[in-house]
């Protein structure tokens, strides 16, 4: 049993606490510290060795003109931040918060320039899908994560590793601190702060097949929801098509997708049909990622899938020597059949001559905590940045814009949290609230014979995969809701088999289960509330995009177990909104820039 007095006595204190210490979190911590705030960063994994930044492909998107004028790269002067912003709206199918998009496009070059000043080597400038110009500044996520980790060491920012934040503590004036679990020691820890930045990433691990690391379970979104903040655009988790489904060591590996983007690979169903003919006969496998994912999922749902429930991707229609040559010119980390830490020749006799079993994997979180352009959440003292915040990408993200998001919005969150902390006093946490949070955790640690957290996690994933998934319908979503209610009733009874506190991953799983259920339910409610298909959401029962009725964001709150869903119309700030009804996958026509732009497209 945890003693409240010693918890308070041993508590740490700072001006700005940042939860999540990778792309966005590290950047927020660095900026807040630069402003003179005392900063503590906290991560569920290890600094520079966890989180989604680490596994990110390698593009940071900025407009091509700035790539030339600000970074000295070989870009295209015809591009501009405004054109980049319009491409973001087109990809996001106009659900983006246009104010955030303007900030994003205009500040991105300067954040990348700072990375260069800190020692980042920009390797290339590439043109990703959906971009009108070459905008992808190439630096791998691994190098970026390590660079930021080194900068935090230089700035002497303490990073509490292997800490899972459990609850945000508040009083009537806002945030007072965070209760966290020191996973390695197995004991609770209190960090008091004047301002808190959530940079905890998405909730991809709720789904069975994912490209993201293990720790991405939506903790920050669920915590924010529990303390009164709101979630937005939760119906749009994004899936990356063509990741390995089998063998299991490769599951979720993005190699096939990257090959499909650069070569004429064929996506096939069990009958050997190129099923994309039914979806986008012109672009076929080079159609957008959302259409690719939906088309593959429909093949499986309608009984035309592969042996293990995916589809096939194949290069075997191409001459073998041509395929062999690709291993000399594919991106450096993909040459000679290398797929990150794997060599495909260890799994396939002749990798280029066999059909790979592939399936879309959950890759990115377009929605999340509602923020304004100062990263404020509406709860005083609570800021949020990076993946797991809403508004920047709308219904779908442009390629390479995930890393940009970490740098632009991490920096802003650190800046505004630092400013906010300077005007705030450190206040003691409310004892009753702390007591409740501690009791909730202590209850979880009691040995018992209730459902094991691992088993509950399996059921959550199964529900997410089978009833929510990529292709949704009202009927399956309602079944998911019933299943979520049942799983929620099991939550208080979960019990770990091991009482040993140190590195007790059953406890971690139990805590994550509550978060994952909150986030999954938010996806279900938001998906039920959208009677159309748009971006990363495809509803089988409403298969068209309806710009006349669909241009609103759904903002969710949860109080005392009751959800509220508020539909807020999208505002045209710099670009007017499209009208009419479109076939799913056909991008909306960008009508015009509004008064301050005036440029017709």
């Amino acid at each position: 049993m945890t003693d409240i007095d010693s918890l308070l006595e041993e508590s740490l204190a700072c001006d700005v606490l940042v939860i999540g210490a990778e792309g966005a979190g590290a950047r927020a911590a660095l900026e807040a510290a630069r402003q003179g705030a005392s900063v503590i960063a906290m991560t569920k994994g290890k600094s520079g060795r966890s989180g989604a930044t680490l596994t990110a492909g390698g593009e940071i998107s900025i407009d091509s003109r700035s790539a030339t004028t600000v970074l000295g790269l070989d870009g295209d002067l015809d591009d501009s931040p405004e054109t980049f912003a319009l491409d973001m709206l087109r990809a996001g199918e106009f659900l983006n918060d246009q104010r955030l998009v303007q900030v994003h496009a205009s500040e991105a070059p300067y954040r990348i320039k700072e990375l260069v000043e800190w020692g980042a080597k920009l390797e290339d400038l590439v043109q990703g899908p959906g971009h009108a110009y070459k905008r992808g500044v190439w630096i791998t996520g691994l190098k970026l994560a390590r660079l930021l980790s080194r900068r935090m060491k230089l700035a002497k920012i303490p990073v509490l590793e292997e800490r899972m934040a459990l609850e945000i503590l508040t009083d009537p004036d806002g945030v007072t601190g965070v209760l966290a679990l020191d996973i390695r020691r197995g004991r609770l820890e209190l960090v008091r702060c004047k301002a808190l930045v959530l940079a905890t990433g998405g909730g991809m691990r709720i789904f069975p097949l994912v490209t993201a690391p293990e720790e991405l379970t939506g903790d920050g979104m669920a915590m924010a929801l529990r303390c009164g903040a709101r979630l937005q655009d939760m119906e749009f988790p994004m899936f990356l098509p063509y990741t390995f489904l089998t063998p299991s060591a490769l599951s979720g590996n993005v190699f096939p997708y990257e090959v499909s983007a650069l070569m004429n690979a064929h996506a096939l169903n069990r009958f050997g049909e190129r099923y994309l003919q039914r979806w986008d006969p012109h672009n076929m496998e080079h159609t957008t990622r959302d259409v690719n994912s939906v088309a593959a999922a429909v093949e499986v749902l309608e009984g035309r899938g592969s042996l293990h429930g995916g589809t096939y991707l194949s290069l075997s229609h191409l001459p073998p020597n041509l395929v062999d040559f690709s291993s000399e010119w594919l991106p450096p980390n993909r040459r000679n059949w290398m797929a990150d830490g794997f060599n495909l020749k260890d799994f396939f006799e002749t990798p280029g001559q066999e059909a790979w079993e592939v399936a879309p994997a959950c890759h990115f979180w377009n929605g999340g905590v509602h923020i304004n352009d100062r990263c404020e959440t509406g709860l005083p003292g609570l800021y949020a940045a990076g993946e797991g915040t809403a508004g920047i990408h709308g219904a779908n993200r442009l390629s390479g814009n995930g890393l940009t998001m970490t740098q632009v919005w991490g920096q802003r969150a650190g800046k505004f949290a630092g400013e906010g902390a300077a005007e705030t006093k450190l206040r003691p946490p409310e004892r009753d609230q702390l007591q409740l949070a501690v009791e909730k955790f202590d209850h979880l640690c009691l040995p018992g014979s209730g459902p094991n957290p691992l088993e509950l996690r399996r059921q959550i994933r199964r529900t997410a995969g089978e009833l929510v998934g990529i292709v949704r319908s009202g009927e399956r979503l309602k079944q998911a809701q019933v299943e979520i209610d049942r799983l929620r009733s099991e939550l208080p009874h979960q019990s770990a088999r091991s009482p040993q506190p140190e590195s007790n991953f059953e406890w971690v799983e139990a805590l994550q289960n509550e978060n994952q259920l909150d986030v999954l339910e938010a996806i279900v409610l938001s998906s039920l509330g959208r009677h159309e298909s748009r971006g990363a959401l495809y509803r089988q029962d409403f298969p068209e995009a309806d710009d006349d009725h669909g241009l609103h964001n759904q903002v969710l709150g949860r109080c005392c177990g009751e959800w509220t869903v508020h539909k807020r119309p999208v505002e045209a700030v710099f670009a007017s909104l499209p009208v009419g009804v479109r076939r799913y996958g056909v991008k909306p026509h960008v009508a015009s820039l509004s008064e301050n732009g005036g440029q017709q497209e």
Partner: protein
Amino acid sequence: MSASSLPKSAASLKASSLTDNAASPAGKKTICISVKRGDRVHSWVESYTIPSEAGRSILGGLQYIRDQLDPTLAFGGSCRIGLCSACMLRANGKPARACTVLLEGDVFLEPLRAEEVVRDLVVED
């Protein structure tokens, strides 16, 4: 504890495990994973038998144990593609990333540094 051969890198496994499994029906063959468990004070070796499966990594084997056999087993893991090193351990005495080394036969797993064990396969940084 079996004196099986060292786990080779994935490179050496194609001929043995993939072909063998293709020849015999799935589920007939099993693999024994022995794990040195405990902390710096108490330790013991626990053996788990799991079905063999072509193309399963050591990490995949550990996850199978945790999901199906013993939820109390502690080990690290994050990126699953050989970048983060959170799953480093010793497999048959040799340092290995559990996510990118395949299970080719019976294997003995230990924490990377015995003197820094926190619990089972988890070590201090």
